[in-house]
């Protein structure tokens, strides 16, 4: 790796000041499982690496009914899937956290890092998008919230302005009678990257026979993870059933802009989105019924 400077501040203020005073390229380091690979391969240049793992706000995971789930930007996958509130209330988050990399990667890789990397195939991004996450961002101009569907703007590019940093990701408390799921297709079950992925959350009415709200996120089939708004809207007011899921899946297939690359062809991806959307909705609804 090329030489760079390293700092490990312990407060957000210190980090913001450091970022505003440094000339040259700055990168923030959380788990490093993507960053170090990028630096080693020469894909990214950097003058200063700021390790944010010493900042308490970025290292906490907390839940309460009012604020929902707050995942600090540097919290690793293993800490997420060992968290009791996540296990009880956010199944799609568990799905994603347990399929990213293998055990050694999960002990380092963070959801915040996955998001900031803005890869079209970010499993964590798909899961969080299906749950309506909000990104809490701070910069020298102050704090702001970015809806997760606006956070990734191009492959590898996020919506953070120069001098801004991601503090945490906030996911609203699940509504009554709701369920979520994240599913992906990979040739190998572990240590692989999605050919295509789908996240969904579904809210049912108290009789469990009508869909009140739905969100569907599509992964690795466009330049960024994608919110399939029309597909989700087609479900509202409907009774959950195979044909309804099929219809939403067909709409989802029309929303995507897949490419052909080393992991799969555009037509395979389109086919996969149909299959995965149906399965994902089916499981999300089953989970909604189970929690009710």
């Amino acid at each position, binding site marked *: 790796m090329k030489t760079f400077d390293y700092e490990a501040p312990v407060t957000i203020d210190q980090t913001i000041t450091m970022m505003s005073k440094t000339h040259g390229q700055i990168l923030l380091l959380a788990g490093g499982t993507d960053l170090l690979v990028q630096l080693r391969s020469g894909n990214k240049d950097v003058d200063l690496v700021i390790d944010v793992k010493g900042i308490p706000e970025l290292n906490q995971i907390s839940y309460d009914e009012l604020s929902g789930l707050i995942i600090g930007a540097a919290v690793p996958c293993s800490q997420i899937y060992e968290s009791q509130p996540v296990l009880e209330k956010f199944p799609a988050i568990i799905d994603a956290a347990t399929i990213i*990399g293998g055990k050694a990667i999960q002990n380092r890789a963070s959801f915040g890092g996955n998001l900031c990397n803005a890869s079209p195939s970010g499993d964590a991004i798909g899961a969080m998008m299906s749950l309506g996450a909000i990104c809490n961002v701070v910069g020298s101009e102050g704090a702001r919230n970015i809806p997760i569907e606006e956070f990734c703007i191009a492959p590898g590019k996020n919506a953070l302005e120069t001098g801004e940093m991601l503090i945490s990701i906030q996911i609203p408390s699940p509504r009554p009678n709701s369920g979520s799921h994240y599913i992906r297709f990979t040739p190998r079950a572990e240590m692989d990257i999605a050919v295509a992925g789908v996240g969904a959350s579904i809210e049912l009415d108290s009789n469990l026979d009508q869909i009140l709200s739905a969100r569907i996120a599509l992964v690795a089939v466009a330049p960024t993870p994608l919110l399939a708004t029309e597909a989700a809207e087609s479900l509202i007011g409907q009774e959950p059933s195979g044909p309804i899921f099929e219809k939403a899946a067909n709409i989802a297939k029309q929303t995507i802009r897949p490419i052909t690359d080393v992991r799969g062809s555009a037509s395979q991806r389109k086919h996969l989105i149909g299959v995965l959307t149906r399965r994902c909705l089916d499981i999300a609804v089953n989970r909604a019924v189970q929690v009710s």
Partner: protein
Amino acid sequence: MSNKRVVSSTINGQQVEFLTEPQQSLLECLRDTLGLTGSKEGCNDGNCGACSVLINNRLVNACLMLGIEIDGKDVVTVEGLANVHELHPVQEAFVLEDGLQCGYCTPGFIVATKALLDRNANPTEDEIRFWLAGNLCRCTGYDKIVRSVRLASQLMNDAKEGPQ
């Protein structure tokens, strides 16, 4: 330009201080600075697990961390498992079940297996294969490794119960 920093951590139970430049990976520090060449460099990008080590009792890839990040941390490498008198039960089991051929991936598998058995004393075959998914072996076909892990689990459970 040299930009060396002092890192102070516990490695295999010993308090250690060493110098590192920020861009040096933990794996480089272990092998080149500290002479702990048990952890191997395979892919150097987090796919093969040959550099598996424990940081504060958590399994990580040493190639995906900076050496400077272990300041104040507790590190265990494959060198820290055996004592002067005997092998660690995981190592013993890999020998008895022929869980290695060329041996290059073995330190990583041994460390990853220890991390597994410390959390789950009686893993199923599925759990073993899932846990070790981040470690690649091109010789054994994995079956002998799975058998080694099952034997290691048995040996460690027997040791806990004490001598017969």
